[in-house]
């Protein structure tokens, strides 16, 4: 019975397949009228993309064509295409290809550069491409800037593993983060936000210095970082990345871009990572990095009615993250309320549980055929939950944020474009902060210190804006203004301008200026406040931060060796605050009790930073590129009782040299990066002075196979680590314990290896 079934099945399968085969022969018709078989010609089915290769006599067969009607064409070099539409089953077709003479211009370009300065944008914009993101381990966004001197990345504190960026000599909180031009990482989501964007999900990152456009709000003061994710339209049905390092950090990324039909496409991205082991490389009793478990998911959809027609994008993303840090003996749950097991055992620990969900929608409607007139609408909603404990400090927060933006674009003339828009934003942050005093013997709570300034904020914002763009061959001007009404803070008004002049195609000058505003979030912007024994003293209501940034850039592109796009560039930017939140570790320091308070207040005097940067990118010989950048920052702030001082913990300079060599066809890629990190002023309570100057070296080798890349590398080759990053690590419940004075690397030399698998749509 079984055999009979198999036989029947085979017969059925065979007849089914046979009935749908398409066979034929391809001929070449030469100029003299002769007809000859086209051996090894190519035949393509347009509908399903199947490709057949003819044999040496020009015969071909398509098996199992699952279509009723199909379009096939045959091609052969030097001959015109021949196309036919057939109903399947169709027995046989003869293609006849005629001799042709086609003209074509030949221009060749190089391979994709990894980091470059954009020629076209009016704002000075540094682009890190997918190739650039593959130069290093780049586990997440925070690690994607190692080759950039514009952006420095450092730890917020020595226990949470949270990383913070700095741009133009100021904290990353003054940079507006955008996910495909939608604002993200605001409020509570900012301290860990960079860690929650897996580097392998990204297609490119654009770092724009200066105040930029008014379209997405006024929150970007020093600049804007926009991330482009993998696209629904990408022809990669499957991408898998696996990564591990010597300390058994494990990471996996999966992405799939699917084109369901001509109108609908989607991309699904998932990430899982974990630091599975506890390490204490510097023997201070504390884990160098917390044990973590992080899960991220992102699904984006694109609906495109027709090329150049209505476009809808929407998506949802969610994540959860758990971080268990602190002393080596600390285990999850030991800080739980009512138990205070860690305190009883004299172990200091930190626990961070973050989760969030985000939905977004974007609609673009072209109103004229040329695409000059259009309407766009963007809406996003996000929920974020944060539950943390640092020793006996407990901080819980949640936030609901909604953002809508509607804009109309049109042109008066080819050279004159304008945009008008209205926007709304709703931010509700709930906070609960408790600094417990526990009884040494029983661990009973004897006192709860809190602060009325840490009870969250609710702000409704309504804004109107307009922006005018003039472009011609040489000159681009983008001038905009925006007025926002905040239910907490009233009206704020920000004008912004970006001008670009190209003396030639290769000589570009840019000038920029504008104003920005933001609500400071005391804890989220200064997470390090929690990882010290100091009491937090918020002296007054914190006003909106308000600053002007001005700057300029000169870029000269030139031909050197292999590249016509070698460049040298100079930048100068100045940010000057009308009001800024100051976190002062010195004002309330009390050596008598080895601690005291950390004071938070509105800056009463001046606060400004000057940043100078030099960039050089060359390709002196084929596939060998070198990028050299150097940044110098002079950051000053007026602190109570100290006057105008250098901003503490802000490194004065950073130099980066990246060298890449790729073998023919980029099958092997070798990358080495050297950084020199300048000294950072230390707070007076640490004795003042400056931190050490330290170098960092990175190297990576990538081998590409068809569809698979394998890479191995080393981070921090010199094994440089900040000595004693935690003050009084031996006695964490003492008053002078402080884990937030971090200026250098916490992790030593690390070897890592990973692979990327990419399937391409056939």
């Amino acid at each position, binding site marked *: 019975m079984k055999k009979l079934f198999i036989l029947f099945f085979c017969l059925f399968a065979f007849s089914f397949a046979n009935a749908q085969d398409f066979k034929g022969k391809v001929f070449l018709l030469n100029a003299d009228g002769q007809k000859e078989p086209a051996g090894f010609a*190519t035949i393509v089915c347009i509908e399903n993309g199947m490709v057949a290769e003819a044999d040496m006599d020009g015969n071909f067969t398509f098996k199992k064509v699952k279509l009723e009607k199909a379009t096939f064409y045959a091609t052969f070099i030097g001959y015109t295409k021949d196309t036919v539409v057939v109903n399947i089953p169709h027995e046989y077709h003869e293609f006849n290809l005629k001799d042709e003479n086609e003209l074509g211009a*030949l221009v*060749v370009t190089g391979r994709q550069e990894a980091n470059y300065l954009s020629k076209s944008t009016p704002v000075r914009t540094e682009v890190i491409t997918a190739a650039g993101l593959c130069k290093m381990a780049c586990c997440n966004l925070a690690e994607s800037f190692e080759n950039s001197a514009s952006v420095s990345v450092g730890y917020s504190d020595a226990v949470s593993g949270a990383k913070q960026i700095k741009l133009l000599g100021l904290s990353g909180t003054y940079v507006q983060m955008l996910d495909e031009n939608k604002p993200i990482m605001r409020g509570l989501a900012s301290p860990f936000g960079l860690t929650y964007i897996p580097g392998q999900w990204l297609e490119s990152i654009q770092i724009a210095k200066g105040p930029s456009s008014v379209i997405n709000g006024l929150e970007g003061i020093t600049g804007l970082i926009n991330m482009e994710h993998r696209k629904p339209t990408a*022809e990669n049905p499957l991408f898998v990345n696996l990564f591990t390092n010597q300390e058994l950090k494990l990471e996996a990324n999966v992405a799939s871009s699917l084109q369901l039909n001509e109108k609908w496409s989607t991309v699904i991205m998932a990430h899982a990572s974990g630091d599975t082991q506890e390490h204490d490389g510097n023997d201070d009793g504390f884990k160098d990095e917390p044990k973590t478990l992080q899960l991220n998911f992102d699904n984006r959809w694109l609906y495109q009615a027709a090329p150049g027609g209505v476009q809808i994008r929407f998506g949802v993303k969610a994540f959860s993250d758990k971080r268990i840090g602190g002393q080596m003996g600390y285990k999850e749950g030991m800080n739980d309320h009512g138990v205070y097991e860690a305190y009883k055992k004299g172990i200091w620990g930190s626990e961070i549980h973050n989760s969030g969900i985000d939905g977004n929608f974007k609609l673009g409607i072209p109103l004229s055929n040329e695409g000059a007139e259009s309407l766009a609408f963007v809406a996003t909603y996000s929920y974020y939950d944060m539950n943390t404990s640092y020793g006996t400090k407990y901080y819980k927060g949640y936030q609901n944020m909604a953002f809508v933006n509607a804009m109309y674009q049109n042109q008066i003339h080819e050279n004159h474009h304008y945009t008008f828009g209205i926007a709304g934003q709703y931010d509700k942050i709930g906070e609960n902060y408790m600094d417990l005093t526990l009884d040494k013997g029983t661990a009973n709570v004897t006192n709860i210190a809190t602060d009325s300034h840490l009870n969250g904020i609710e702000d409704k914002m309504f804004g109107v804006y307009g922006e005018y763009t003039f472009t011609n061959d040489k000159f681009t001007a983008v001038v905009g203004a925006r007025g926002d009404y905040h239910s907490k803070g009233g009206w704020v008004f920000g004008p912004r301008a970006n001008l670009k002049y190209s003396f030639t195609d290769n000589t570009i000058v840019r000038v920029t200026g504008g104003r920005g505003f933001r609500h400071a979030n005391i804890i989220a912007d200064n997470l390090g406040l929690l990882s010290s024994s100091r009491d937090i003293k918020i002296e007054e209501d914190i006003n909106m931060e308000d600053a002007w940034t001005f700057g300029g850039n000169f870029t000269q592109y030139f031909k050197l060796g292999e590249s016509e796009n070698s460049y040298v560039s100079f930048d100068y930017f100045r940010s000057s605050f009308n009001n800024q939140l100051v976190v002062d570790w010195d004002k309330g320091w009390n050596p008598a009790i080895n601690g005291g308070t950390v004071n938070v207040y509105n800056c009463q005097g001046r606060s400004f930073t000057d940043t100078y940067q030099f960039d050089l990118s060359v390709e002196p010989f084929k596939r060998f590129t070198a990028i050299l950048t150097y940044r110098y920052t002079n950051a000053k702030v007026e602190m109570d009782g100290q006057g105008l001082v250098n901003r503490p913990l802000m490194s004065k300079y950073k130099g980066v040299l990246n060298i890449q060599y790729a073998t023919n066809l980029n099958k092997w890629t070798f990358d080495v990066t050297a950084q020199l990190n300048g000294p950072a002023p230390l707070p007076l309570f640490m004795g003042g002075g400056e931190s050490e100057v330290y170098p960092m070296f990175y190297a990576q080798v990538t081998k*590409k196979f068809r*569809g698979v890349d394998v890479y191995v590398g080393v981070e921090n080759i010199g094994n440089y680590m900040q000595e004693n990053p935690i003050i009084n690590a031996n006695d964490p419940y003492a008053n002078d314990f402080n884990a937030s004075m971090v200026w250098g690397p916490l992790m030593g030399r690390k070897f890592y290896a990973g692979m990327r698998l990419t399937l391409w749509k056939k």
Partner: protein
Amino acid sequence: MKAFKIFVAVLVATFAFSFNAQAQKEKKGSMEEVTFSVDIHCESCKTKCEANLPYIKGVKDFKVDMESNTIWFKFDGSKVTKQKLSSELAKLGYPGTEVKPENAQKK
């Protein structure tokens, strides 16, 4: 200083290795060139080609140019034919026609 020495050692090793790898590739042979005119209109198409074309046996070098919609190949004629290259391009979704060298205009 120790860090610097390690760094220099890695640098030297890296380049010694890479140039060696390169040297092995440069063998004499029947090198040929061909340029195809293809409908290649987006950055992702270029990426797709750049990810796949190096692995066709016999391909020694190639360049994808979106401005002129062409793909140029340098290949070992004893290992691969123009027709095979054309068929591989078609398999990727970019069927093309050869641009005859005598007609090609260099910008």
